[in-house]
């Protein structure tokens, strides 16, 4: 797991998704991605999930597990 991107250069949603992902860095990637996606579904407003997915789709510099979580939110 790479460190989260610098706060000033990313959107809040991408930054927060990476902060969550850091907690599950020791898990198998697919399991971690599912856990992250479930957490976002439970606690994030739809507008934030949309913004996060849009960033991911636009090619934001995402950790692979975070990118996978974004995919799972479709």
């Amino acid at each position: 797991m790479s460190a989260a991107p610098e706060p000033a250069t990313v959107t809040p949603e991408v930054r927060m998704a990476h902060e969550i992902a850091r907690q599950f860095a020791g898990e198998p990637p697919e399991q971690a991605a599912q856990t992250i996606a479930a957490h976002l579904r439970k606690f994030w407003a739809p507008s934030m999930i949309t913004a996060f997915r849009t960033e991911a789709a636009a090619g934001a510099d995402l950790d692979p597990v975070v990118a996978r979580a974004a995919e799972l939110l479709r």
Partner: protein
Amino acid sequence: MSLLKEPDFGTPARTSETTVTVEVDGHAVEVPAGTSVLRAAAEAGIAIPKLCASDNLEPFGSCRLCVVDIEGARGTPASCTTPCTDGMKVTTQTPELADLRRGVMELYISDHPLDCLTCPANGDCELQDMAGVVGLREVRYGHEGKNHLKEEKDTSNPYFDFDPSKCISCSRCVRACDEVQGTFALTIEGRGFDSKVAPGGSADFMSSECVSCGACVQACPTSTLQEKTVVDLGMPDRTVLTTCAYCGVGCSFKAELRGDQLVRMVPHKDGGANEGHSCVKGRFAFGYADHPDRQLSPMMRDSIDDEWRPVGWEEALTEVARRFSALRSEHGPGAIGGITSSRTTNEEVYAVQKMVRGAFGNNNVDTCARVCHSPTGYGLNQTFGTSAGTQTFSSVEHSDVIMVIGANPTDAHPVFASRMKRRLRAGAKLIVADPRRIDLVRSPHVEAEHHLPLQPGSNVALINAMAHTVVTEGLVDQEFLDARCEGQDEYLEFIRGPENAPEALEEVIGVDADRIRAAARLFATGGSSAIYYGLGVTEHSQGSTMVMGLANLAMLTGNVGREGVGVNPLRGQNNVQGSCDMGSFPHELPGYRHIGTESVREIYESLWGTTLDPDPGLRIPNMFDAAVDGTFRGLFVQGEDIAQSDPNTHHVEAALSALDCLVVQDLFLNETARFAHIFLPGTSFLEKDGTFTNAERRINRVRPTMPPRTGKHEWQVVAEIAARMGFAMNWERSADIMDEIAATTPTFAGVSFAHLDRVGSVQWPCNEAAPLGTPTMHVGSFVRGKGRLMKTVYVPTLERSTRRYPLILTTGRILSQYNVGAQTRRTANSSWHAEDVLEIHPHDAEDRGITDGALVEVASRVGTTRLHARISDRMPVGVVYTTFHHPESGANVVTTENSDWATNCPEYKVTAVQVAPALRADTTRAGTATSTLAPVGVGAGE
């Protein structure tokens, strides 16, 4: 009600498995073994004269008024110090006893001013009462001899006077300071006739160790220690029982009034949370309620650059509804939201979340608990099944080991701290985990067995190291774990890992491995072990993980589900627990039920006649981000000062400035109101009618001493806004709101104002199965069935000290001030803390050329502020500390956007900063890019 005078049974109640029966003046009384004769008589309705005895103090036997005859006993023993024995026959009234008592009173009065008619305590003086009771008619000794009548009065304390000329040296004040408060600030100086009460070795009360809790004033049987308000206003004539509006201890008070004028607040003996004790805030700092800064009428302005224009309620409420409705229509329902406050009642919080969900049409409602205890909600819900402390406060009296982590109870929860210190003086062992050497580590007659001065940000490493020790050294309560918990295999495998060993983590934690192991062993093997924690646990990037770690440790050692144990969040504000309970999180309806659960939504949809949004709304920081990017346009803020209390002030101010409509409802034009378009005046706790829920889940009544000075209750204002937006909230009175809460929330099913008026208070769950509430949770089974052990991987925060910002700033609270200081700054409490200061270790100060009291500049990567330095060796090297009670210092100008991964609770406790002597003299905050910080031996880069 008329003035409530509580009975005083003379000595404390005793608990014992055996009872004894005594005969007092021919009446048989059965009492627990160890009960004094004085108390047994009082319980039989027989009042024995007394002066030095009080039922919140251990018997002292000094005044000799309570002497009695006991059949077969020699002399006339003091009934306060004489325990009952089975078959004892006591006589309380004989001619000889009457002579003795009159003689005692004669001596007292011979050295006491005879100014009863002009004395502030006239009518509330036990000495005066006793003179009458014993039939004193003359004082044969006169006043000409040696006396204390010309002793000088000490008026240094802003809240009470000390008049030694009226002191009878009964020691009640000294004993109250020792036994009840635990500060040991008072003493009796001198011997014999020269003995007198003195504030330690200090010249006066104000310069002494006294913490102004008021216990001595309450204990004083004369006017020696007297509230200045009583001196100024006279004796009160009526009582309203209510609840303190400060911290999460939620003390019960007798508001004593003279007409509509509040004269004093006296702690209520029957208050479940405080049992007759108080602190300087609740006891004395109520003057803000009628401070000249108080705003009593609505105000509006078109732009935040305009002057405020006072308007009537009708115009203000119509405009609020018009603006929010317009924003909803133009930008969609997600463009508006509301923030509830832990300083308001359950009923007011419930009203706001209902308005947001029903009238605004979304779940964009959040509460200030977001920035303090939201990780408690997440962590305890994951592990135990609900978001609440497990114990009642009195449970600590049964603890053998007490672990305090990330909390400073003597400052932030002083009444509970006094209770805890009492238990510690009685022999319980204490573990303190805190970077600072807080007062609890070593105070009179209390010394921590272990102080673990961990590095800020290493909480999870510490709790994992402790759990590793417990597991690998065979200290697990396997029977408890097998019977009560799940997730054992995965968790135990994780925690046994060498990466969690104290030896592997000691460098990160900053505490030697053997000290960590010793603390863990004590916690696991010391008997009943309890955890008390505060914001030093939650306000971290791993706040939620740490809460789960604490729950894990409690479960591993079998310390849940009985008295003396448990995991106990010490809530910052008075109604943090309640505001969370009431559904003011954007993903939860009242009672911690997820908004996505259809069956729960249906309860409200059916009752409210509307359809609810099934998706979570925005949290407070998400609202700020959305406001900055232009998708969030309107905000209703009740009772919170987010511009001062929330982190990264510049970001918050940018968000508030971007809003099309900000509505603030508060007592004062606070920092947030600088960005508001409409201001709605709020009510103080003296006007509110509702309930607060404290940190032990205790639901207490808040009763009004007067009608709202603004003309409307907050919930009425909210309901009228909602109605103007087309959503009816038809309540006639605040009791109706609690009835609605009870009808829709299973844990509150048995709660009503009428029930609380009958039984005093209840701790939820309160329902058919537990009509008097539930003092201890998770007895037999957890709320979620099995307790769930959770893996708690330590992940270091991204906020680290660097060459540019080599120190770590951590923030906290101080005894005399409260939260953003909106209330306490408008009282004489500022005599003790007129400004926020920066505590810094002597080594760090010397390195930077900083002297004690010097103005310094504190810079982080997001902002700069200035504070005066206080050099203190209770700070560890590399860590500095400040409070956030004053807007001028703007501690949150420097705190960052970092937050707890699960809940977005800000990481207030870890900010990398540099500190240097300030080059400019003013103490106002500097802003983002205006640092004048002189480099201190480091390059500009990191």
